[in-house]
């Protein structure tokens, strides 16, 4: 029983990060059919924002030294700002472009962010120590898990609940969900396009920033490429979750995380390095089974 619980916790710890990422991707995808490949770079950007720009090897932590009560809102704000800025500077001018063009632009934007970071911080990973007293194990129903991991899970769920509340109970949320599903119709009902898109980008940036904070706390490292793998999994989760379905994205993010943990646990040693091959084969099967996504809203037709 304990073993099962332990696997469950491990799966949640991995999955919850993917879920947050998938939500960030799905929000933007929903309102403007944009696969935002720069999302992973927002994550890295937020983490590096805690450090003084310097190509020295030893990182000088600046914002990262602030007490949590200041640090968290500042980093979240930075995430929202870079995300909104990229909307205003780049994506706004591409509203009527086809999805491939927007996707390539987002990739180019991510490339720019990466190389700007590279220029100001050099490529060597930097150490960040946030809240080191969280690095203690705790015991829950016999399963021993690091406090940090537990917090990651809790924080993820707090964020998810807060976001669900925002989406379900507020006017903004209602408009955003509607816009995610059928943008033109929502506009014909008076939903303001720019406001919804900006809000979506802001929320997506907040999510990127929270992933950044969680990752930085969990790994203690700032690395320019740190957001990329999460972005890719999140992207996959968004599609197999069903385009336009935010809960689908979250659930599939969790599922992919869980699947990778289960594969890690049950594959024999020799096959373990091939874990991702199994994972992505499962993704292909999943797509064949439900091309529109597992949780696609019934009325949603593929528009890409």
């Amino acid at each position, binding site marked *: 029983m304990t073993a099962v619980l332990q696997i469950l916790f491990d799966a949640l710890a991995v999955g919850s990060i993917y879920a947050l990422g998938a939500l960030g991707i799905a929000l933007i995808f929903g309102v403007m059919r944009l696969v935002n490949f720069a999302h992973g770079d927002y994550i890295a950007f937020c983490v590096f924002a805690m450090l003084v720009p310097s190509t020295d090897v030893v990182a000088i932590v600046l914002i990262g030294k602030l007490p949590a009560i200041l640090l968290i809102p500042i980093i979240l704000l930075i995430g929202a700002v870079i995300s909104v800025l990229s909307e205003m500077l780049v994506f706004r001018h*591409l509203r009527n*472009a086809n999805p491939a063009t927007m996707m*390539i632009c987002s990739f*180019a934007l991510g490339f720019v962010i990466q190389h700007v970071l590279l220029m100001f911080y050099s490529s060597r990973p930097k150490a960040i120590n946030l809240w080191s007293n969280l690095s203690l194990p705790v015991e829950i129903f016999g399963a021993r898990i690091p406090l940090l991991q537990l917090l990651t899970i809790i924080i993820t769920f707090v964020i998810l609940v807060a976001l669900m509340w925002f989406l379900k109970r507020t006017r903004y949320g209602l408009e955003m969900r509607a816009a995610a599903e059928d943008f033109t119709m929502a506009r014909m009902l008076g939903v303001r396009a720019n406001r919804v898109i900006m809000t979506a980008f802001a929320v997506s940036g907040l999510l990127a920033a929270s992933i950044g904070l969680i990752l930085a706390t969990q790994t203690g490292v700032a690395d320019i490429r740190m957001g990329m793998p999460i972005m890719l999994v999140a992207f996959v989760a968004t599609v197999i979750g069903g385009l336009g379905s935010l809960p689908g994205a979250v659930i599939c993010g969790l599922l992919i995380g869980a699947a990778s943990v289960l594969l890690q646990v049950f594959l024999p040693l020799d096959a373990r*390095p091939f874990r991702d091959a199994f994972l992505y084969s499962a993704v292909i099967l999943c797509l064949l089974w439900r091309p529109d996504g597992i949780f696609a809203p019934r009325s949603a037709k*593929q528009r890409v």
Partner: protein
Amino acid sequence: MKQPQSVLAKTISTPVILIALLVVIAILTALFGSGSFARTVTEIFIRVAFVVGLYIFIGNSGVISFGHAGFMCIGAYAAAWFTVPPMMKKVLLPGLPEIVSNAQLPFLGSLVLSSFLAALVALLVGLIMMRLAGIAASIATFAFLAVINTVYANWESVTAATSSVVGIPMVTGVWTSLFGASAAILIAYFYSISRWGLALRAARDEDIAASASGVDIYRQRLISFVISAFVCGMSGVLYAHYLGVVNPDAFYLGITFISLSMFVVGGMSSLSGAVLGVVIISAIIQILRWFEKGIDIGGLTLELPNGIQEIAIGVVMIVILVFRPAGLLGKREVLLKGWPFKRRTAD
């Protein structure tokens, strides 16, 4: 309205002009370029072949593929399997079947055989994946790339895993790669004007109408997928024989995204766009690199800090796409008459 020419005459000029452009670049390189510049041009030609391979599938089907770097990988590794001296293979790649590890094919043999292997793999995965359309298909191709990468990066006895495979004869130069790029352009051209190409483009533009009129979209996509995999595999072979070293990391996300970017910037639905996208973006990159090294302009040395090139190329691509969302050429092709560009009526 000007008098329209016949479709064939109109389109035959396209591959001729494109190949002529590459030939001119090659001749200029041979006459004036340094050794390292010739390498740059070779790499551009290999990239042209790869992106033209992308065009065959993406341009005609409208489905974005993230997976074609996988075919490049398959082609490049196959080239290694067929051409590395048997002595080395027995030590470094002990898992290869006897018949392969004993073989040492000449370049041309390796080129054809390896490209066919890529096409064969495309046929097998395409049988499954080409049932999908739109973004689901795109994700499936990405998943395919991830699977290929994971397998090649870990199959110790056959691919040497993350370790580079060395000993591939470095025979790809400017002329070889020119041949490869020209072959790719011709294959793409003849495919596009074929019954298959027309049917697939019809399906791309009018999904339901095309299937109502009897176009089997699945079959057409599969054909185009296999042909494009052949061309991309070929570019992988050229790459392996160009660098002399293959490593799975070289055929993953980096090359996928930069090639897709060149393709989209050029114009996704145009063969000329695929070729010019590569040539123009590569040229800009090269010029920026010279600026990074420092360029003398009238006694003034202009030198950009290292790393500016990547930032600048990202910005340039965004600006081009903001002003020309359909890419530099959109759906147009370069043609002899109606200089410089004229709408092509074959579509």
